[in-house]
C-alpha cells in the first residue's frame, strides 16, 4: 500500500489529526506513553502556535450542538519560544512526521513564526528536517478578533502571506482555509499561486449559541466555530470544489468520525484526511480510522490512489 505524499513529507496512511484537537503530550500523561511510540495518526499536528503566549478567550468556550459542537478557544498557547523550548523536542521524538500549525496577526508574524521554527528544526535535525516537519498556515481561525481570519477570507492577502512564508520555508507548506467565504476556491487558487504545497479544508464554521437562561450569547467570545458531523456535508462540498480548482493535494476535514467519512472525503478529492472533534470523545479514533479504512478499501477491492477524487469521475 502506497504511503501518502504531502510535499516532502511521507505519511504512512492518510489519517492525521486536525490542529487544536489533540494534545498528544497530555494524552501520553493521561493514557500512557504508548500513544507516543505508536501514534494514532500518520502525522501529528499540534494546536496552532502564535508568536506570543496567549491566554485565549474567556470561559465558557465550548458547547455541544445538534450533531456537533461549537468552540471559541481563541488560540490559547505558550507562544513560539515556549513551544520551541518545551514541546518541540518531545514532538520531534514521535515516530511520525510533524505538521506545525502557525497563526499570525500580521504578515510579519507569519514570517517570524516560520523563520523561528526553521531555525529550531535545523538546529535539532540538520539538513534532513524537511522530511520530518512541515508547516500549516492557519489563516482561518474564526475565534480571534483580528489577524488570521481576515487574511484567509481575502485572496490577495492569502497570496501575500503564503508567498512570504514560501520564500523562507523549504519544507511542506499547507494553507488551511476558512469555509466562511463566498468562494473558497478563490482563496485556494491564491494559495496555490503563491507556492503552497497543499491546502487544508476546512476550519470551523462561524456560529453562535444562546444561553438558555439569560438569552445572551453563551460563549465568552460571543461567536465560535462549529465542528463535528453537523458540518460534514458542508466540508465535503468545499473539498469537492477545491479538487476541481487546484492541482495541489487537499487535506480534508470537518466532521470525520468513521472510516466511511474518511472515504467520502477521499472520494471528493482529499489526499489526506484529518479527524478533529471526534477525537474528543475518543482520543484513539485516529488509529481505529486507519485500521477501518484499510478494511474498507480491501473490502471494496480498491486503494487510496484509486479512491482519491473518484466522486468526480463517472461510475
Amino acid at each position, binding site marked *: 500500500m502506497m504511503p501518502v505524499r504531502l510535499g516532502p513529507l511521507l505519511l504512512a496512511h492518510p489519517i492525521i489529526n486536525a490542529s487544536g484537537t489533540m494534545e498528544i503530550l*497530555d494524552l501520553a500523561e493521561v493514557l500512557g506513553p504508548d500513544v507516543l511510540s505508536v501514534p494514532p495518526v500518520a502525522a501529528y499536528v499540534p494546536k496552532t502556535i502564535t508568536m506570543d503566549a496567549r491566554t*485565549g478567550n474567556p*470561559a465558557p468556550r*465550548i458547547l*455541544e450542538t445538534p450533531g456537533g459542537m461549537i468552540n471559541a478557544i481563541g488560540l490559547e498557547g505558550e507562544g513560539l519560544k515556549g513551544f520551541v523550548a518545551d514541546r518541540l523536542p518531545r514532538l520531534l521524538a514521535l515516530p511520525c512526521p510533524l505538521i506545525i500549525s502557525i497563526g499570525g496577526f500580521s504578515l510579519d508574524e507569519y514570517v517570524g513564526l516560520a523563520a523561528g521554527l526553521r531555525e529550531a528544526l535545523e538546529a535539532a535535525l540538520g539538513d534532513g528536517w524537511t522530511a520530518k516537519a512541515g508547516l500549516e498556515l492557519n489563516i482561518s481561525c474564526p475565534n480571534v478578533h483580528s489577524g488570521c481570519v481576515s487574511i484567509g477570507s481575502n485572496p490577495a492577502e492569502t497570496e501575500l502571506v503564503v508567498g512570504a512564508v514560501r520564500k523562507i520555508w523549504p519544507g511542506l507548506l499547507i494553507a488551511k482555509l476558512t469555509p466562511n467565504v463566498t468562494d473558497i476556491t478563490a482563496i485556494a487558487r491564491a494559495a496555490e499561486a503563491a507556492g503552497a504545497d497543499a491546502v487544508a479544508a476546512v476550519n470551523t464554521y462561524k456560529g453562535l449559541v444562546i444561553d438558555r437562561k439569560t438569552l445572551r450569547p453563551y460563549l465568552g467570545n460571543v461567536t465560535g466555530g462549529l465542528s*463535528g458531523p453537523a458540518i460534514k456535508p458542508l466540508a465535503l462540498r468545499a473539498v469537492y470544489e477545491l479538487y476541481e480548482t487546484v492541482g495541489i493535494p487537499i487535506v480534508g476535514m470537518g466532521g470525520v468520525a468513521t472510516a466511511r467519512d474518511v472515504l467520502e472525503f477521499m472520494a471528493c478529492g482529499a489526499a489526506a484526511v484529518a479527524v478533529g472533534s471526534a477525537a*474528543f*470523545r475518543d482520543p484513539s479514533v485516529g*488509529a481505529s480510522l*486507519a485500521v477501518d479504512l484499510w478494511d474498507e478499501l480491501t473490502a471494496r477491492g480498491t486503494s487510496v490512489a484509486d479512491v482519491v477524487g473518484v466522486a468526480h469521475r463517472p461510475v
Partner: protein
Amino acid sequence: MAGGAPAVWPPVAGAGAGGAFAARCLGAVVENRSLGSLVWLTLEVPGWPGAVPGQFAMLQARDSGCFLGRPLSVSAQYGEVVSFMIAPIGEGTRELCALSVGEQVWVLGPLGNGFDLDLLTAGPGRTVLVGGGVGAAPFPLLLSALAARYQQTPPPADAPKPEVLVLLGFRDASQACGAGPLAGAAEELEAAGVSCPGEVATEDGSIGRPERVTETMWRQVRPGDRLAVCGPWPMIEGVAKVCACIPDVQVWYSLEAGMACGVGSCHGCVVTLADGSRARVCREGPVFSSAALFDRGCFDAPAGGAS
C-alpha cells in the same frame, strides 16, 4: 527519526478497530438504582485501573444521540465495578440515567488529579467535606479512601480521635437522597476509629435544616480545618467567602466545567486562576487549592471561574 513515517499500514496490523492504543472501553451497566432525583449507576469496566477520589470519567451511552461524553465523578469502585451518582439534567445525563442492566457505556478514565489525601489529613484540624447537590458524588469514594488510610495507619492512641465532618446542601429532599451512598463509607471510617458526623441542609427545608450549606459552614467550620469542596460555581464562590473569614483553613475545590475531551486536548474547560493564567479543569484539576484559585487564597474578588 529522519523520514519518520512508520513503514506499515495499518499501523498495527490485524489489531482490529482501535489498534494497540484504545483509549475508551465499553462498560456494561450492572445496576441502575434510583436515588430520589438522582441515579446511582454501576458499571463493570474491563481493565478499570482504579481512581483517586475526585477523579472523573467521560461517559457516553453506546448508542448515544449526543456527540460527546460527559464528565462524571467516580463515586465508588470495587475492582472493575465502578459507580457514578448522576443528576439527569440534560440529554447526556438523561440517556445515562435511562440505561438498563446490560446496556453499554463508553468509559474514558479515570481522569483529572483528584484530592490529595496527605494534604487533607495533615495537621491537627479536622477534614471537612462540603458538597452541594450532586457535588456530593465524589465523597463516598473519598470517605472510603480516608477510612482505608486510617485503617492502614491508625492514629496514635494518645492523639485525639480524628474527625471527618461531612456537610451537604441540597435543593430538596429528593436530591438529598444523594447523601445515602455516603452512609456506608462513614461507617467504614467509624470502624477505623475516626468519627464521621454529618449534617444535611436543603434549600426548601424539606429535609435537614432549611438553609444553604454555606450557612451550615458558619456554624461548623473551625480554624485549622481542611476542606474538600465540590459543587457548582455559585456554591464554590459562597464557600470561598465563608472561608475567607475563618483563619487558618485550607481548602481544595473540585470544579465543574463544560468539557469536550476530559484529557487536556480541547482547552475548552478552562478556569481563570488567581494569577490570571488559565488552567484546564480536566488536566490541572478538577481539584484546585484555594491559593491557586483565589487572590490571597480566599474569595474577595471575582478572579474567574469555570462558567
